[in-house]
């Protein structure tokens, strides 16, 4: 064929822009990854839009209110031995999630090595860190609702939109963490049982993608809601 030198052949695995044209124009699957992984990425893309809409809504109400925004550094301070430490619990929650991301990355690695005992153990540890995170969040919410009197429609510290933005954003994130704990636990039990010995251990990486995404969202919430 005359044009075969300019148009990359289907599935030629060429790198760079030639590869993009080849992968998208070929009469075959576009993404050369397991279908579950492609679907997880596309789900995470949709989740990115949801969380961005929440954070953008929060930005909009915070910019548009003429009332002073409550200072998160003081609202989320904890007293330790009589000293107010700003954002202490939130800092611990951040390190908790980063730690769980690391154990998850290791679990994926051991999965591909077919070391299913270690992969499952690391997934259980990851889920445990997730459960601890949700526990700390429950403590944080309780303190804010019971002691500080923060409600979705108002609070004693300043702009009344604070509560609505806070409960919506952290609530939806906490829901994702809770779902992730359940998801990881189920997959870890199946890994331990040897369900994936034939199929391969892509499922650990796919579950890992979800978990890392939950950590990723927290990075943005931490920066824009707690630190800003």
């Amino acid at each position, binding site marked *: 064929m005359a044009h075969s030198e300019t148009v990359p052949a289907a599935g030629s695995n060429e790198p760079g822009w030639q590869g993009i044209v080849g992968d998208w124009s070929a009469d075959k699957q576009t993404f*050369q990854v397991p279908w579950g992984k492609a679907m997880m990425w596309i789900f995470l893309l949709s989740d990115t839009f949801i969380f961005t809409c929440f954070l953008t809504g929060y930005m909009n109400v915070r910019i548009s209110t003429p009332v002073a925004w409550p200072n998160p550094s003081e609202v989320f301070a904890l007293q330790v031995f009589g000293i107010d430490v700003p954002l202490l619990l939130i800092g611990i929650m951040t390190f908790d999630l980063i730690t769980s991301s690391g154990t998850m990355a290791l679990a994926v690695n051991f999965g591909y090595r077919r070391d299913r005992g270690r992969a499952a153990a690391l997934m259980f540890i990851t889920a445990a860190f997730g459960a601890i995170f949700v526990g700390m969040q429950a403590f944080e919410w309780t303190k804010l609702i019971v002691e500080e009197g923060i409600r979705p429609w108002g609070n004693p510290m300043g702009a009344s939109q604070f509560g609505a933005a806070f409960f919506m954003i952290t609530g939806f994130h906490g829901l994702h963490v809770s779902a992730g704990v359940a998801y990881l636990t189920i997959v870890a039990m199946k890994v331990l049982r040897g369900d994936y010995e034939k199929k391969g251990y892509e499922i650990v990486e796919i579950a890992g993608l979800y978990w890392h995404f939950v950590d990723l969202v927290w*990075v943005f919430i931490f920066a824009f809601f707690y630190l*800003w």
Partner: protein
Amino acid sequence: MADAHAATGQQHPLKIYFYIWGLLFLFSAASYGTDFLQHGYFRWGLILLFMALKAGFIVAIFMHMAWERLALIWAILGPPIVLLVLIGLMAVEGDYTELTRLNFFSAPLAPAGHTEAH
């Protein structure tokens, strides 16, 4: 072939995960440290810097995006670019809403006898 492993799974030396893990701890600590700075452009710049570094390393290394093919990378990382437009529009709109509110609240009070609440 460099891309051969992409079809069978992402297998990389453990060293890189420990290295990135350490970096993420470092950036988290630095990020937390910004809370002790005065509010201002310096602090906001640092918050954004550490946020971008953390997010970048999580996506690139932990989520293996650095080793995926460009077809997948652009399909996933391309669409969120339009969100920047939404963020920009909502920032402008928020500023405008605040101006109209300040304008409204600073307007002369309604004539006496007009007790209707806003």
